[in-house]
């Protein structure tokens, strides 16, 4: 007969308790560190901009000037450039990306589905500096010699498409941003479309709907909140891209009336100033630009994440 223990050990061993507590403490510290990091980024960026803020105040946001010689700085033309390039990029990217996601989930033959999907994802993996290099040396001349003259011949009567075609400018930057935003929106949209319950689609098909009608009536309806979030995530990407935009936008301080003209965005202006500032005020103004960018991107990301979480909660959590 083996001895059967009549009672369990009174408590866990001392070492185990220490080990458990140590594990909790270390991992909790790492987790807290993540939250602290965001706070630190915000604090440092705002702190750095305090000099410019005390000099220019909120007027910084509505002045279109960047003059290191006279120490005059303002962000308006960069805010404008950011808004216009991001807007055009999304206008182009959203339908393309949703089209890709629909093709990959509804249309593509099984054999090529994964390959095409992987290729689209590879587009997202291209480093932005390489896309910018391509933007300068390949896209730029193409814009100058082909696309912009062609656009002008049709739409030249609209002020947006007036002026001389150029290699670098708002439109070039928007196209590069489109290329960056498409794979992001497409991959989120694809995940959404896959989750549409088959019985809903089958129901629509049984009613005689064509494939497009199933998409329009069921797939897009079911996922529209999520699609909104996908587009907002793409916006976040377009807004914050510094390198490729610096390379192709031309980098001038003006509020261009034509898409062919050069301009600048918040992120690209910061990037273009990396070789040094003439004064503390200029450095501080860069921080001010970064602070504006940070606020925009925080708002956009939080909105997108809240939508995604709500979508997952109502559509995935319920099933």
């Amino acid at each position, binding site marked *: 007969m083996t001895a059967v223990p009549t009672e369990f050990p009174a408590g866990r061993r001392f070492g185990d308790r220490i080990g458990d507590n140590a594990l909790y403490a270390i991992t909790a510290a790492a987790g807290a560190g993540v939250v602290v990091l965001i706070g630190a980024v915000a604090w440092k960026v705002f702190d750095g901009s305090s000099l410019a803020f005390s000099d220019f105040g909120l007027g910084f946001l509505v002045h279109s000037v960047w003059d290191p010689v006279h120490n005059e700085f303002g962000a308006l033309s960069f805010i404008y450039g950011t808004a216009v390039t991001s807007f055009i990029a999304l206008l182009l990217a959203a339908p393309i990306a949703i089209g890709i996601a629909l*093709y990959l989930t509804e249309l593509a033959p099984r054999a090529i589905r994964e390959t095409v999907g992987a290729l689209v994802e590879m587009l997202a993996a291209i480093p932005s500096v390489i896309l910018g290099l391509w933007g300068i040396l390949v896209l730029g001349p193409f814009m100058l010699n082909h696309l912009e003259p062609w656009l002008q011949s049709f739409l030249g009567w609209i002020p947006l498409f007036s002026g001389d075609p150029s290699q670098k400018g708002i439109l070039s930057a928007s196209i590069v941003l489109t290329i960056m935003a498409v794979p992001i929106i497409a991959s989120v949209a694809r995940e959404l479309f896959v989750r549409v319950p088959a019985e809903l689609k089958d129901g629509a098909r049984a009613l005689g709907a064509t494939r497009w009608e199933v998409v329009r009536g069921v797939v897009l309806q079911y996922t529209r909140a999520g699609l909104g979030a996908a587009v907002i995530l793409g916006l976040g990407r377009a807004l914050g891209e510094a390198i490729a935009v610096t390379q192709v936008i031309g980098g001038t301080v003006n509020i261009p009336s034509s898409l062919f003209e050069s301009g600048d965005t918040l992120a690209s202006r910061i990037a273009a100033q990396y070789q040094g500032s003439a004064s503390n005020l200029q450095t501080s103004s860069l921080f001010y630009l970064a602070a504006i960018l940070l606020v925009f991107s925080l708002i956009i990301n939080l909105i997108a994440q809240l939508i995604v979480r709500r979508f997952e909660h109502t559509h995935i959590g319920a099933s």
Partner: protein
Amino acid sequence: MSTTPPNIDPRAAALFQTDGRLRRRRIVNRLMEALGTIASLAAVAVLVIVVASVVKNGWGAFSVEFFTTSPSLSGFGTAEGGILSSIVGSILLVVIATIFALPIGVLVAIFVSEVAPRKVADVIRLALDVINGLPTIVTGIFIFSVLVLAQGQSAIAGGLALAIIGLPLIARSAQEVLRLVPTSYREAGLALGAPRWRTILGVILPTSLGGILTGTTLAIARVAGETAPLLFTTSLAVTTSVTWDPTQPVQSMPLTIFQYAEQPDPSFHEQAWATGAVLLAFVLVVSLISKFLLARSRRKLTQ
């Protein structure tokens, strides 16, 4: 039984009614299918065009010297020498970034999926998503103000900026694999009388190690191509010689591409393309491998 499916707009239901417009509906359907296909083709075409441009334009610069020497200043306005100092600098930066991001990322993932109460875990997950969405130039500016203003540029500063970018990627993929570890493993560990820390370190982590490592390679592929965070942290480097000293600023491949692209002489452009080809090959191969491995470790865990 005429219940409409849930979540369908009543307006949409009208679409399903068959009437004499069948022909038009078919045409619209075809049109939309064609647009979706064209969109996909366009995306693939852009990928092919960009990759082809990089390879075609950079091909001429490839030589043994390109990989084994650093740029020399002897060429007057033309590119002389190779990119060895950039390759070494990029390796150094990625190693530093991994050293910081990997352990912290794994610890955060363990906290979120094994230790933290649900609400706390949600907050930290949101925080990770926010960090992931930070414009990388802002990350660079942050490190600039924390480190560079006081101590000057260094590979450590650049590596730290990259670590912040890699951290959410590593933490997220680690979380994802940790979640796939079957609950029975945890219960088995606890049933054997092992305390939680030993269950986590001895059972759960080893099981998910493959997934964590492949997530790390994905992060490496991402940060290796980043330029913006390096501008303010490690851009003013001596490019003509190789340095492994992390306290000095180092040249890197993305920065070389960025700077050469702005040069007037075409010889710099050719070198920029060639550097782009090296970087692109690295990034694409690493991300393909990690995707393949991630799928495999996921399959293993879900079996």
